């Protein structure tokens, strides 16, 4: 199949009015999304349509559907990212935002004059611009192999983004939020149905283990159905 997998909700958004988006029966996928009864309603509050498509493409590529979990978009990771960027963290909560702005050494940590939301926005635009120049299409339209190379190159800072944004800084915030969306409590929109916790065997928030600690100390596996904040609320 040549058509790369595109997240279904962004596709719906993009499709809004545009008839017959090729090869993707969007309508047929609505019940699937609804059936998952997400903790956080679908829809984006920060990501623009083209940004949502990019984020969904990254999330689906990094967290593909397989025997372990559904893909990252179905896990709600794109929703998680959208909410994180729309919220206080995305807006620079707790970030020291006074200049002068210098590159510094890697040991000195993050030094860009942008909030996570601004960094995301700029990074998506510049990565897409790079992809258009190099491949003639935006990131979401690349083949899986091409996507893999772009992500590898971003992570290794081998890729020179056209607006001068350090590739690694953008990659770091993307990777951080994908992992957070995967493993954070489902109340934030990702890790739907606690799938990532089930995948590794993390029991979640309910933990009165004064007895268990003495029982499960011989190499046997702690059997647990994970419990989330919503489960206890």
């Amino acid at each position, binding site marked *: 199949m040549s058509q790369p997998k595109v997240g279904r909700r962004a596709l719906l958004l993009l499709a809004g009015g545009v008839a017959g988006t090729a090869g993707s029966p969007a309508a047929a996928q609505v019940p699937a999304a609804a059936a998952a009864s997400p903790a956080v309603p679908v829809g984006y509050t920060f990501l623009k349509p083209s940004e949502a498509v990019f984020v969904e493409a990254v999330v689906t590529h990094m967290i593909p559907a397989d025997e372990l979990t559904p893909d990252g978009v179905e896990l709600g990771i794109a929703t998680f990212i959208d909410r994180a960027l729309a919220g206080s963290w995305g807006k620079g909560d*707790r970030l020291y935002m006074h200049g002068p702005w210098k590159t510094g050494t890697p040991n000195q940590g993050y030094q860009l004059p942008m909030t996570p939301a601004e960094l995301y926005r700029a990074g998506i635009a510049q990565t897409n611009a790079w992809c258009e120049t190099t491949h003639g299409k935006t990131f979401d339209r690349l083949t899986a192999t091409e996507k893999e190379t772009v992500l590898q190159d971003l992570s290794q800072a081998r890729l020179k983004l056209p607006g001068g944004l350090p590739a690694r800084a953008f990659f770091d915030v993307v990777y951080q939020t994908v992992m957070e969306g995967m493993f954070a409590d489902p109340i934030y929109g990702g890790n739907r149905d606690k799938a990532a916790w089930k995948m590794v065997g993390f029991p979640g928030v309910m933990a009165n283990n004064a007895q268990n600690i003495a029982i499960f100390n011989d190499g046997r596996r702690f059997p647990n159905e994970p419990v989330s904040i919503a489960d206890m609320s």
Partner: protein
Amino acid sequence: MARRLPPVDIVIVGMGWTGGIMARELGPTGQKIVVLERGGPRSTEEDFAVPLIRDELRFAQRTDLMMDTAKDTVSVRNNPTEEALPMRRLGSFLPGEGVGGAGAHWNGVSWRWADHDLKIRSTYEARYGAKFIPDDMPLCDWGVSYAELEPYYEKFEYIAGVSGKAGNLRGRLQPGGNPFEGARKRDYPLPPLTENYAGRLFTEATKGLGLHPFARPTANASRPYVNPDGMQLGQCQYCGFCERFGCESNAKGSPNITVIPVALKNPNVELRNWSWVQKVMLDSTGKKAVGVAYVNVQTGEELEQPADLVILCAYGLSNVHLMLLSGIGKPYDPQSGVGVIGSHYAYQGTASQQMFFEGKNFNPFLATGGLGAIIDDYHADQGFDRGPLGYIGGSTITAGGSGGRPIGYRPTPAGTPAWGSDWKRATAKWYQSALSVNALGAVMPHRQNFLDLDPTYRNRFGQPLLRMTFDFKDNDQKQNRHAAELCTQIGKAMNPTRVNPAFYPRSWSVVPYQSTHNTGGAIMGREPGTSAVNTWLQSWDVSNVFVVGASAFPHNSAYNPTGPVAALAYRTAEAIRDRYLKRPGLLA
């Protein structure tokens, strides 16, 4: 113009471990005491309630209980030739903000630093000769002995509810404890925590190597406990949300459930939240403090609180910051070596060996703050010969762990991709079956590791940030490299299926979390020219200012700091109560 408040006798800056101890101990003197805390109030019922508190994203990732770097931070660089840049978000260390300070979200590991640390210079000179100490390492004895601190260590262990097993009771070695510890008069108030599988394997392996493992002593209550002040601690539930979180079971010995509520029962003690101290005000001679200037961060109002005695308990780094901002003592100049405020800044060495055990489950989430087995053979044991290794210091080595929360904890074998199905498979396969042996290492003072005021960057009040110049120097590198080798040796003895390359930091980075064990900057000693405070933590220069915290440490050990931080605080409180208040002036 700042509004001037009616004077009080004593003002304490900061309501964490040390502020709580000072307020608790000085309350009964009848002095009118005001504690100014920059952050908000905190209670177990409201702030640490389940399920609210069991939120890795909010508390561990977004550092909700900790210092807000948008308001104040430090600038950092590895050496004086670099330009320091602000730590724009928390990483390497996580200071507190709000009642309890870092003590609200600490782990609880509690040590008694003994004479091999307190008399470090004399110990090394006697054993290896003065030449063994490099010229650029201003190593010094602390000016107190273990015997002097022993009762105060005991006091802290009983207040905080430390679980552990004595290794040396009145000079008699005890099975199951640390054979290298200083002699103690009493055992810990609570038995050790229940060992987990990681601790068991580590214990077997290190015993097999002829080493001396024991349960890490920690203020996580292994049983329900009532402390000498009548404060009740619940039993630890091994919930795995300890470090970086508050405890819903009141099982973590924190100042919030011990010294602070006791202090506040005393009508002489008043806590003012949201009160950010900007500096200590001095009189025209510069030798006497007349109070502190602070801002109500909820109204923006500037206030002055006159007081006869000022006690800085703002965490080591903030103590040094406040001294520099206030002009207390002579700032350290790394070029000439003159001055003391800011010198001897040290941090914590680390090394680790990540391993994987096919088919074995460690259940890393069944855990608590200080859970684990540990050895002190390469640190406190004076039989351990540093001569051929050529370094001063040492490392404690442990396995156990404070939690397996999966945003932060997802070890995979080296070579595993960072995303995709293969990453998922490796993560699913090894999450339960990974184990790491970790070293905590000492850091010796170095002339080029120091704190001063940043020339460029400012906090929300327009005050210069504290500037941190730090790197792991030659001595630390040798020690950490050795620690990594030891971790590997011990790790291999545990028969892992797979082993990652051992890790130790080649230079200090502000990005990954290492430890909130920042020491030095206002060191204690017996001589005014070479120390900032005397052994009662009293400023040599402004005798009605006491500076309590790890800022007083002349070097950092392979132990966590809060044991001696608290012991020194108790000793200071006693000296203020019994001597200073009767006859204000220098105690030494």
